[in-house]
């Protein structure tokens, strides 16, 4: 049982209460998407789930142990988190950036231990970045950067991967590619949680959906059981048409 369980979670940013009464469960091997209108609290939910924001009420446990008890470094080895529009401030090489994902496993001083080099090589190969490994990460394209960041997140082979907006700013081809890679991670046994703006894309790849509105969970569950026209209408306050085809559910917002 290594589920991530949020029980009665409330989160305050500054003086503003952003989330209240959040109950949710995420399981290994599943891709969960967090959807909802702008400002609903999706990013805050992900940060709380990643253990980066301490809740003012409620508990968050991973495998039954509260995140605060697991400890900063131990948690960092088990969970990877990618913020929105992740980038890098210095022109570090792609390989260096990917290696940064191993920070929690590194000694305090010195370079990358040779035992960890294969992990970096594998992550680069998996993300089709081997040819770009020496290129400064500030000089790659948007789609390539997204792959670099994902490779950075998964290089340590985390059991929990939390990603805020993996498709933001990507063209359809790269957005599809990004979600395919997340899907593959989940299929390999990882627990993947992603906030996704593109509902259509989200519903095509996800197992579970968490719909967040005004700081609370409106509805949540496996796609097949919770997503319908009425649910999406209530979530976004617009009319919706749902069609089902070979690729799965497809959403069109009308009016």
């Amino acid at each position, binding site marked *: 049982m290594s589920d991530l369980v949020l029980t009665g979670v409330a989160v305050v940013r500054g003086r503003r209460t952003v989330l209240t009464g959040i109950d949710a469960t995420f399981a290994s091997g599943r891709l969960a998407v967090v959807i909802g209108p702008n400002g609903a609290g999706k990013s805050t939910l992900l940060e709380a789930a990643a253990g980066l924001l301490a809740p003012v009420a409620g508990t968050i446990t991973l495998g039954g142990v509260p995140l605060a008890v697991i400890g900063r470094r131990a948690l*960092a080895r088990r969970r990877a988190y990618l913020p929105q529009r992740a980038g890098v401030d210095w022109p*570090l090489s792609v390989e260096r950036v990917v290696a940064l994902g191993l*920070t929690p496993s590194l000694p305090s001083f010195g370079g990358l231990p040779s035992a960890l080099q294969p992990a970096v090589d594998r992550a680069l190969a998996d993300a089709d970045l081997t040819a770009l490994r020496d290129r*400064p990460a500030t000089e790659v394209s948007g789609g390539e950067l997204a792959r670099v960041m994902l490779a950075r997140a998964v290089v340590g082979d985390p059991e929990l991967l939390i990603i805020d907006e993996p498709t933001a700013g990507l063209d359809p081809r790269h957005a599809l590619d990004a979600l395919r890679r997340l899907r593959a991670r989940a299929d390999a046994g990882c627990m993947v949680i992603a906030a996704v703006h593109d509902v259509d894309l989200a519903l095509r790849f996800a197992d579970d959906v968490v719909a967040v509105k005004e700081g609370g969970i409106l509805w949540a569950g496996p796609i097949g059981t919770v997503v319908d026209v009425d649910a999406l209408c209530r979530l976004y306050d617009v009319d919706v048409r749902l069609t089902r085809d070979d690729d799965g559910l497809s959403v069109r917002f009308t009016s």
Partner: protein
Amino acid sequence: MSRALVSSLAAGLVVAIAGSLFAGVVWLSPATIAGALSSTHTTLASLIVVDVRLPRILLAALVGGILGLAGAVLQGLLRNPLAEPGLLGITAGASLGAVVAIYYGAAAAFALATPLFALTGALAAAAAALVLARGGGTLALILAGAAISSLAYAAVYLALDLAPSPYATYEILTWLMGSLADRSWHHVALAGPFILAGAALLLLTGRSLDALALGERAAASLGIDVARVRLLALFGTALGVGAATAVAGSVGFVGLIAPHLVRPLVGHRPSAVLVPAALTGAIIVVLADLATRVLRGSAQGIGLGVFISLVGAPFFLWLVLRTARRTE
């Protein structure tokens, strides 16, 4: 690559230090210096080498080293290539402390009053910046530092305006220009431990600075305690740069330029910049101090800080233009 760079910079520093033992009011030959360093008798040469030049040159290396190191750490912490100790108000705080010592006559009462007051000022400025920026991010820290810096410099100029005597005015002005002239082993003993302690704290931040290249949130997710890193960086800078400013006066620019010089050579990795930046800073200040000694002609000597800025600013401008062209 990095190891080769560190070794060659260290060798360069040793050459610079050895070279500057020769020059000054009296030019000494290598044989004389070797004799002075090995002999047990006290001769003119041994007095000049052991008691006048050596402490001064070592101090130059320590001061330059900590300025370069602090600059590299702050640039990494704030992810801003323009960061340097002056930006966070630490140099200004140290200056104010020293000026208070001079103004209220404590400096005249005992020679080490100025350094001690300066160190206190630097620590106070760092503490104020941390408290003001509490809860805020990097930008809050930069803004708090800028505010403290302006306030401290305003107080320095107020002191200049109200200086009780021409003597105090003269003292404050010379001090603001920065100098290592006639610093003794006393000053090495006073500033050395603080500079080394500050450097140790700063070096602890290396790994975290690498992770911070990804942003504060991402760094935190990698297990970095960002608040602790900030505390280490500011406190280490206040200790080290405070002590350096205390004995050498305000020496700007080294903290800004030293990291820039070495960054491209280490693949821009923030932790790899630290030691080379410290060595580069040390070389810069040792050579600048040598230049101020040699260039002292019939006129008054050039202030160390003034000299570094005079030579450094055009060079830095060239560097900026070159970088701008390359990234176009």
